[in-house]
């Protein structure tokens, strides 16, 4: 599923997600060179470093929530999961965004996932 793609995973991302990425053919890389940047916590130190980087300021380093990778698993396709909805913005602007848009998709996903786990 992830063949030919490189990703960086924050330390806040669970090992299971990283393993799934690799098992589906994805490669791992440093945060400066990876095609995809994944984090589960915008306020973790390694992720904040990205928000402070020149790449981010120049709009060349969007961080996605690692729940995107988990969401691809049951669907067995990257084309049916809208990655553009999994943007993980800096922690300091998340609250002002919640006022305008409600919950982020990666927050609702967590609920759905845990309900699925209960049912199975």
């Amino acid at each position, binding site marked *: 599923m992830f063949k030919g*793609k490189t990703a960086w995973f924050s330390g806040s991302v669970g090992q299971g997600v990283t393993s799934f990425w690799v098992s589906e053919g994805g490669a791992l890389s440093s945060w400066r060179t*990876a*095609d*995809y*940047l994944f984090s589960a916590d915008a306020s973790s130190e390694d992720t904040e470093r990205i*928000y*402070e980087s020149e790449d*981010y*300021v120049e*709009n*060349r*380093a*969007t*961080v*996605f929530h690692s729940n*995107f990778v988990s969401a*691809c698993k049951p669907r067995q396709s*990257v*084309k*049916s*999961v*809208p*990655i*553009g*909805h999994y*943007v993980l*913005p*800096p922690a*300091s*602007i998340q*609250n*002002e*965004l*919640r*006022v*305008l*848009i*409600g*919950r982020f998709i990666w927050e609702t996903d967590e609920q759905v996932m845990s309900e699925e786990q209960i049912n199975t």
Partner: protein
Amino acid sequence: KPPSASKPRGLRCAGCVKHMNEMDSRSFGAVLRSCRFQCDFHLVLREAEDRFRRSQQLKRTSHTLTHTHIHTHDKNRKSTSEDTERSKREKHRLSHQTSDRCVSLTPLRRPREIHSVR
């Protein structure tokens, strides 16, 4: 059907419909920017991120300014009142920017509590 001229609510934009093979962390910003309009979600996201970026840039500029000042003072042992005024204003503006970003603590909506019992 051709898209209507006015922007309907709930419309999906390039940020919504392009999948992983069509954009990554490096190109997402450019994809959103090149899109003629954004859906409500991507519009507010882009505006908030842009504001954050501007405040990051301001932080960098002020660091450089402070550094230059120290350097100048070391060399000439003289500080003009104009310099001091400028750096004061810079700091003032910065503290405003920072507090702007952190003011709102919002209560999260709890959909389960909305159900009313007659």
